[in-house]
């Protein structure tokens, strides 16, 4: 335990510059969105408190906005606002709106009607009644809404890293992808601390004697938030403007890499070390990266070579001519205890061995990602086409648990395996799809929460085993050597066996828009470097 703390603090100390800038970005995003949400939500709340017939419509609409999943909301915004701080702030604003509007409305309508009547009867006009009576008396409720919105925003702001807006999410999601607990904690602890302290500060403000403070405190709060937002804005946008400038000139290219890619030896680090590639880079979520490339927000992305979106968004893979991306052959990995418990399992899983090549996998992915066919249907169609499909036996044997990571290809593979097992054995199958990143999936396997899942040799090697550099160099891009190494190491270290490879290699790949690639004549990473250096 002591050991671990040491390394966490070490990590945070080493990364302190990044940590500070991420925290600043995080607060900047939160406060800017909060100020805007107050600026919109408060008047809107006051409006519907006056015109009650609008209330259910406005509150209902804000409620619907609240239920949009954050990643989907960010996705909607790329065509409108691009990537970076702007769409992130708009998304945060959308989530902060409901609590503020609702509490303003509830606060004002909840003011004792006798007091309002007295105010009218004494000869106050509408404005005086609102500012001297209704708002001061509703203030504790309104502040509670702002407090809720602030805490929601701190949480949702971690997702800003998905669209290159920075914030503590960079560490959190990078850490999850890279199986780096220290990195996760270095993002999560400050984020939690920010949420708790902001909540605490606002709760103190709320408890102060509102009766005595009256509107002063509220004006003060808005001012503080506005100043903070204003101060933090340039810091936050610095990254952003830079990116925009270069892409608008068109002379230079911008890269959008996932947090995972940024931290990996076979990712950004390797690109710099081996190719000497120097490209303005923004961190972006895997889910939104392809779309952002398609929308010309970024030019070069760190995609996966079998991704269906290659086909959907007209992207091409740049050839890795110096070989920094190790092979990522897809292989089902199984706990050895599960192989004993389910004796027929290995043979059934191996039926798929060698059946799916890169092109087939891109096509299958394209069908789910772009044609929106369900993974079940794609899996069934595929098995029929290769003659492996059998009707389920509906057996009542033991329950086998299949895991998958949270992206399309893994869902399809999980479904294919389910159909194979149900068609060939009497085992019952439970699929646990969408288990986050590598770390979550692998932890689930080792801790007996699932029995097997499809993993990639490169991931096993670099993320889970992380061997010495010398050993990596020796293995290079040799598929067999890598496979043998991980299989042996996993059996020893984790009692997990790698079965036969499925056939396709889903490695990292740099990719860009096909049109642009042709226009600037860049087809390999070396050509990309040359192009960047000369322009």
């Amino acid at each position: 335990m002591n050991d671990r703390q040491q390394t966490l603090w070490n990590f945070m100390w080493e990364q302190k510059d990044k940590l500070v800038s991420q925290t600043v970005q995080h607060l900047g995003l939160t406060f800017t969105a909060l100020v805007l949400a107050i600026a919109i939500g408060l008047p809107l709340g006051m409006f519907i408190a006056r015109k009650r017939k609008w209330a259910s419509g406005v509150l209902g609409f804000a409620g619907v906005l609240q239920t949009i999943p954050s990643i989907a909301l960010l996705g909607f915004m790329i065509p409108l606002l691009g990537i970076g701080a702007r769409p992130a702030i708009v998304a945060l604003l959308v989530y902060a709106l409901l609590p503020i509007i609702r509490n303003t409305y509830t606060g004002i309508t909840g003011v004792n009607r006798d007091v309002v009547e007295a105010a009218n009867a004494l000869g106050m006009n509408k404005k005086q009644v609102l500012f001297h009576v209704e708002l001061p008396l509703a203030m504790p409720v309104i502040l509670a809404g702002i407090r809720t919105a602030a805490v929601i925003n701190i949480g949702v702001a971690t997702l800003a890293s998905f669209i290159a807006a920075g914030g503590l999410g960079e560490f959190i999601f990078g850490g999850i992808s890279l199986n780096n607990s220290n990195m996760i904690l270095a993002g999560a602890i400050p984020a939690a601390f920010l949420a708790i302290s902001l909540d605490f500060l606002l709760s103190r403000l709320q408890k102060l004697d509102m009766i005595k403070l009256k509107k002063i405190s509220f004006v003060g709060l808005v001012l503080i938030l506005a100043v903070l937002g204003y101060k933090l804005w340039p810091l936050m946008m610095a990254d952003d403007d830079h990116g925009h400038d270069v892409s608008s000139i068109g002379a230079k290219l911008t890269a959008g890499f996932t947090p995972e890619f940024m931290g990996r030896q076979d990712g950004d680090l390797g690109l710099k070390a081996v190719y000497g590639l120097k490209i303005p880079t923004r961190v972006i979520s895997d889910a939104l990266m392809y779309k952002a490339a398609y929308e010309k927000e970024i030019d070069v992305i760190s995609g996966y070579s079998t991704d269906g979106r290659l086909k959907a968004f007209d992207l091409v893979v740049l050839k890795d001519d110096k070989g920094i991306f190790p092979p990522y052959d897809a292989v089902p990995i199984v706990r050895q205890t599960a192989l004993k418990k389910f004796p027929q399992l290995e043979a059934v899983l191996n039926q798929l061995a060698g059946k799916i090549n890169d092109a087939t996998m891109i096509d299958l992915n394209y069908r789910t990602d772009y044609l929106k066919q369900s993974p079940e249907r794609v899996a069934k169609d595929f098995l029929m086409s290769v003659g492996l499909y059998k009707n389920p036996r509906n057996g009542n044997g033991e329950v086998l648990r299949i895991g998958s990571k949270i992206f399309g290809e893994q869902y399809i593979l999980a479904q294919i395996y389910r159909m194979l097992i149900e068609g060939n054995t009497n085992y019952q199958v439970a699929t646990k799809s969408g288990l986050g990143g590598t770390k979550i999936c692998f932890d689930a396997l080792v801790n007996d929460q699932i029995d097997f899942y499809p993993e990639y040799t490169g991931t096993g090697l670099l993320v889970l085993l992380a061997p010495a550099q010398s050993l990596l160099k020796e293995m290079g891009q040799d598929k067999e050597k890598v496979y043998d190494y991980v299989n042996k190491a996993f059996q020893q270290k984790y009692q997990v066996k790698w079965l036969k490879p499925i056939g396709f290699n889903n490695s990292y790949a740099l990719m860009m828009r096909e049109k642009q690639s042709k226009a600037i004549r860049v087809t390999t990473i070396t050509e990309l470097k040359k192009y960047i250096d000369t322009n």
Partner: protein
Amino acid sequence: MIELSGVSKRFGNTQAVKDVSFTVESGETMVLLGTSGCGKTTTLKMINRLIEPDAGKISIHGQSASDEKPEMLRRKIGYVMQNIGLFPHYTISENIAIVPKLLKWTVEKTRERTHELLEKLRLSPDCLALFPHELSGGQQQRVGLARALVADPAILLMDEPFGALDNVTRSEIHVEFKALEELKRKTIVMVTHDVQEAFDLADRICLMNKGEVVQIGTAKDLLYRPVNDFARQFLDGARLALEFKCARIKDLWELLPQPATIRNDAAFSKDSGGIKDRFQSADLSVWLAITYFNFTENDYVSFILDNGPGWIKTFNFQELSQAFYRYQQQNIHE
């Protein structure tokens, strides 16, 4: 002077007020009396335009109420309500200063007037820095009254002003209220559902039912000359008490025993203290006069008439009730 003519108000399908007309003379106290839902509060609120009438005319001091901005109109009309409606986030002094502030009085003028009112309403200046929730119900009621009176409006509207008080406190307040110098010159319209309160405080009563005026008149008119069964039945529950309240000793003066029966006892000696201490005023209602009797045959009380012949009469409870009985007979047959 307040004049309503043909005033009506409808809420959805309910006709809350229907063709109401009456005049309140300057300095008069008019009580709108009726059960809940009879339209009396709606009628009251139309006078200061908290509710706008659908039809009819309301004029104040001969000027149409609708000619002026509602908030300007209201600053000239005091308003006291059942639930008081003090601003919980304002201190007592700030609560009282609301209207002066709207009228842009100087701080000094406001302060002086506030202290003057506190004295008249028997409130301690210590309470000025407190918040409403720190005061008792009765004190809050006085602050509510002070707030309504601070700008010395000629007109005062009161919506069940004593509704939140218990019965004992209420009759004490009635006496005190009647005696308030500050209120004597005011034109007052008060809403109540309590018949006794109406009789205690009203110069004239406007009895309402289902949004319409049933009868307008003095307490005596309502008691002895009801226009219909509704008016009669409305008072029946408390008839005896009302009759006691309605009649003053001086009203029965002729029916009481002649001065010849004055007992020449020690009590009548001019040496045994001031006359005023020993004699009760004939202005008292029978209701209040009764409280001075012990209900034994030998218990005599002396009453003094301010002017006129036979200015002192002394009688026991039995003689008083006989006189009262005959007085009732006279009124009924009038």
